[in-house]
């Protein structure tokens, strides 16, 4: 295998270019097929009925009317459901294995009918009675008795002696920051078409981790992985919600098995809030101590939060405080309490997004009390190696991001004191915050297939990768085309199918690095293998110009294929690798109404090699907009009496609309990272949101003089 990080001497240059999405034409004509768009003959429609209590057991089910309702071909409850092997988030209740209820809105029955209307009407007819148990749903009460997280990943992390350094510090900050429960709410609700052929299951199902979904279904239904096929070429957004397997997918497959027909099952928007995980509510106490010059001496980041009752998942809010600044003494801890809610899970920027809100606001507050510019304050505490583990950075660009961003934003014009800038009815303020997210490559296999007709070669790359709007199709085509030195129109990208070589998932920002390195490697391997077979060739000699058509014809081949199992570079583990950013926000706050507009933002990102600035920029825009939503709009509220969400719909759970978003400038700083992986690719899916909410909240303080530590910053909080 070639040691080259990248290819040279190619006529076809695509890597790093602004190539339009190769699947764009299908997305703008409505022909891109999402899960329920696949034409499947004889499909029946399934609708889920949910529990209307948060804890206890189902003591009775009256489904007689539903069973007799027109068009109904199956009513499945825990009483008649096939026995499965629950695993992970497919816990017993969620796949109708027992009568136990763990949270309000738990799946409790599936109705299958000839039409959607019939299934929906029948589902409404099912009447449940419950033996209710006391539900743990009042966060404010429960959090008072929270205990240290039993999860080993969330054990205390102690560096130096925090208490001592903190009490000795000249300048201190002690403040509590609160973020609410949030939902992923991708525009495509989770939906599935499931069909069985004998003991083989095929599901059209949006899956960020294609092989993970295959494995989960195999486990639950007691099948060999090869008996399950997951098809998911396009995913209508996921943001973590489509990373794992949730009950709805298993129920679709179960229903198809029961009625012996293909079944289509789409969650309703209202069902999304209690079906596919959520971002937990976090209460973060921050204590920071610094000396008179602004050097940080101590930091404590103590998170109190909740888990579900069936999982110990806790997002790592404190991670950011372990590695963002050079602080000799620190303490990171988690206390949790179990709640009867759907299990918390990964949501865009898991841990880092809420964690950075707390840390980056705290930094801003401390800088202000020191009368120091918050950028200067950050620069002063810039770490030369990762303080969390002492490892050198494979690359780090925080300083460059801040420098570039402040220039673009015009930071020098910002007033340190709040309430200094006014424009008509509006108070104007600016804020800054930095963010980061770990960069990793994960094992991914890929096959490249070449076919030649005369001098014309077409290539297909195949791997079970996924594209949830991240642009996977496009970047892989770019890499294959340039590496093989072919026009991009000669490349087909086959992804989103578990029958293809196993790949990492599009989660935790590992997708781009893992997929692109695998495709790069398999194309390079194509060339070296062809060169080895070619009588005229003097052996592997990339990077000289290559001509795959010539190589193939010399070797007398019309078809050729090869496969790699790409692995992350061995040395990567000895370094600390992250993507970095700096976010600048200017907010306009209507002093009377309290309505806030982020009129402009600048986001500068260092994320290694940018394979396609156009699609990457879009992901950063998405991160910014998510961050704005987190800062200003998003909040899910549980009624503490019953544990139901009062924010079930898009009318109640607000995400930003077009008018909420002003101008956003995105820039990338050049980062050449030869360590993180061969191509030097980090990820941008997660980092984009990290730090954004803090930048907005800091700007609101700068505009109004009001420090809002509880998100979202809605007008009522500014009254």
């Amino acid at each position, binding site marked *: 295998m070639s040691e080259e990080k990248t290819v040279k001497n190619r006529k076809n240059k695509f890597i790093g270019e602004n190539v339009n999405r190769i699947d764009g034409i299908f997305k703008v004509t409505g022909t891109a097929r999402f899960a329920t768009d696949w034409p499947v003959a004889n499909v029946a429609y399934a609708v889920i009925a949910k529990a209307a209590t948060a804890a206890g057991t189902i003591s009775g089910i009256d489904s007689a009317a539903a069973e007799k309702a027109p068009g109904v071909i199956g009513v499945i409850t825990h009483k008649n459901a096939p026995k499965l092997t629950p695993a992970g988030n497919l816990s017993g209740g969620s796949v109708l294995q027992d009568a136990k209820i763990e949270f309000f809105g738990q799946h409790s029955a599936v109705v299958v009918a000839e039409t959607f209307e019939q299934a929906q009407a029948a589902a409404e007819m099912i009447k449940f009675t419950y033996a209710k148990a006391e539900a743990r749903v009042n966060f404010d009460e429960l959090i008072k008795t929270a205990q240290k997280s039993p999860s080993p990943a969330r054990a205390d992390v102690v560096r130096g002696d925090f208490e001592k350094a903190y009490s000795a510090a000249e300048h201190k900050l002690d403040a509590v920051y609160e973020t609410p429960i949030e939902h992923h709410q991708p525009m495509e609700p989770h939906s599935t078409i499931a069909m069985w052929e004998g003991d083989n299951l095929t599901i059209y199902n949006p899956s960020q981790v294609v092989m993970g979904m295959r494995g989960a279904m195999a486990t639950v239904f007691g099948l060999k992985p090869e008996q399950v096929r997951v098809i998911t070429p396009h995913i209508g957004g996921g943001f973590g919600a489509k990373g794992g397997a949730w009950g709805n997918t298993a129920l679709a497959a179960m229903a198809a098995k029961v009625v012996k027909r293909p079944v289509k099952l789409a969650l309703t928007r209202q069902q999304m809030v209690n079906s596919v995980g959520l971002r937990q509510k976090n209460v973060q106490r921050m204590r920071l101590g610094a000396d008179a010059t602004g050097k940080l001496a101590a930091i404590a980041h103590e998170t109190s939060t909740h888990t579900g009752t069936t999982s110990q998942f806790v997002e790592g809010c404190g991670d950011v405080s372990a590695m963002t600044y050079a602080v000799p003494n620190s303490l990171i801890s988690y206390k949790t309490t179990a709640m009867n809610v759907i299990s918390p899970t990964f949501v865009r920027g898991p841990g880092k997004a809420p964690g950075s809100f707390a840390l980056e606001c705290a930094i801003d507050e401390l800088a202000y009390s020191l009368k120091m510019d918050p950028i200067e304050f950050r620069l002063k505490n810039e770490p030369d190696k990762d303080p969390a583990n002492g490892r050198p950075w494979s690359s780090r660009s925080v300083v460059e991001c801040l420098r570039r961003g402040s220039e673009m934003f015009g930071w020098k014009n910002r007033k340190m004191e709040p309430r200094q800038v006014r424009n008509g009815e509006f108070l104007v303020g600016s804020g800054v915050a930095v963010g980061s997210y770990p960069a990793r490559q994960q094992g991914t296999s890929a096959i490249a297939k070449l076919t030649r007709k005369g001098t014309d070669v077409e290539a297909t790359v195949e791997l079970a990768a996924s594209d949830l709007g991240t642009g996977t199709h496009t970047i892989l085509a770019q890499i294959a085309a340039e590496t093989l030195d072919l026009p991009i129109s000669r490349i087909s990208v086959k992804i989103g199918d578990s029958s293809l070589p196993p790949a990492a998932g599009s989660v935790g920002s590992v997708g781009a690095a893992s997929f692109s390195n695998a495709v790069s490697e398999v194309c390079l391997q194509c060339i070296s293998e062809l060169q080895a077979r070619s009588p005229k060739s003097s052996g592997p000699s990339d990077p000289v110009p290559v001509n795959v058509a010539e190589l193939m014809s010399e070797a007398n081949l019309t078809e050729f294929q090869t496969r790699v199992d790409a692995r992350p570079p061995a040395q990567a583990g000895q370094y600390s690798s992250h993507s970095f950013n700096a976010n600048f926000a200017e907010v306009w706050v209507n002093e009377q*109404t309290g*309505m806030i507009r982020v009129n402009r933002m600048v986001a500068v990102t260092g994320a290694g090699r940018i394979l396609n600035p156009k699609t990457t920029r879009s992901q950063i825009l998405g991160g910014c907009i998510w961050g704005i939503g987190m800062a200003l709009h998003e909040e899910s509220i549980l009624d503490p009496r019953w544990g139901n969400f*009062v*924010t*079930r*719909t898009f*009318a109640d759970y*607000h995400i930003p*609309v077009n*008018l909420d978003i002003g101008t956003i400038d995105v820039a990338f700083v050049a980062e050449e990272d030869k360590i993180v992986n061969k191509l030097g690719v980090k990820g941008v899916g997660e980092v984009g949101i990290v730090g954004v909410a803090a930048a907005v909240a800091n700007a609101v303080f700068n505009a109004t003089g009001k420090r809002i530590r509880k998100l979202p910053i809605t007008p009522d909080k500014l009254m």
Partner: protein
Amino acid sequence: MRPFKYTRATDVAAAAKTVSTNREAAFLAGGTNLLDLMKEGVAKPSELVDISGLAFSKIRSSGNVISIGSTAKNSDTANHALIRRNFPMLSQAILAGASAQIRNMATNGGNLMQRTRCTYFYDVNMPCNKREPGSGCGAMEGINKGHAIFGWSDKCIATNPSDMSVALMALDAVVKVSGADKKQRSIAFADFHRLPGDTPEKDNTLEPGEMITSIDIPMSSAGMAANSYYLKVRDRASYAFALVSVAAAFEIKGGSVAKARVALGSVSHKPWRCDQAEKLLTGKSLKDLNDASLRAAVDAELMDAKPLEHNGYKVELARRAMVLAFKRALKSEVVA
């Protein structure tokens, strides 16, 4: 959704008759509220009478009123030259509501009839006296950030979500209705929506089967066109219901306020007419209008506000929003 019979109405009386005799029947206009509620299981009509084809889609001037057809679309109404010229605040209020797509579907009659957005009303798993009389009010002891600060009862604390209605209230509109027996009546806007009292299931004073045929606005209200404003405060910039909204309109004659009309939205079970504030502002010379005097008028109005556990902010928000709306309405006329 339960099955229902769908028919297209061809004449008012027959349609009204169907709906008055079958208590489970309902008129269907744009469908943007009714269909939503049917999908939630909140409304369960056995029969829908589609009235969108009836001849009530005109907006016209007749005598001393502008008559707005009940089946005219919200978007056509907001953009109609007669409305823009005479009642620009109504255009603003309509355009502040929902989205372009919804306004292209929604009718004026349907807009007045739209039901509360109280989340407990919408969730059939929750108790709600308005949806199911006697089941209790989920919001009273629950999450009531969006609920009423005026005129609520111990049975219901919901607000009326219509933006259009707030402007119509301030414009002294009259709702024309036609019943099963072809009986026509006119209802003053202030009497159209009602307070919840002991019967929160009734949003308004229509009799079963009565259909709104038009909404008439007196031309006398057009004198306020130049100095009117509809302000909507919400949790995001657009496509969201109001936290508080204000319709403010003034007629200025000879340097003073000859007429003042003020209504608040999202603070009560009905659009809230602010008589107190109107009284204090009427007759005021423009040079006496400043922050302090505007504020005094507003304070008088808000004295009776009764906030709930989570909506105390609405009082202060209404206070500030009213002053701001007054200023925007009065524009250059006020120096403050």
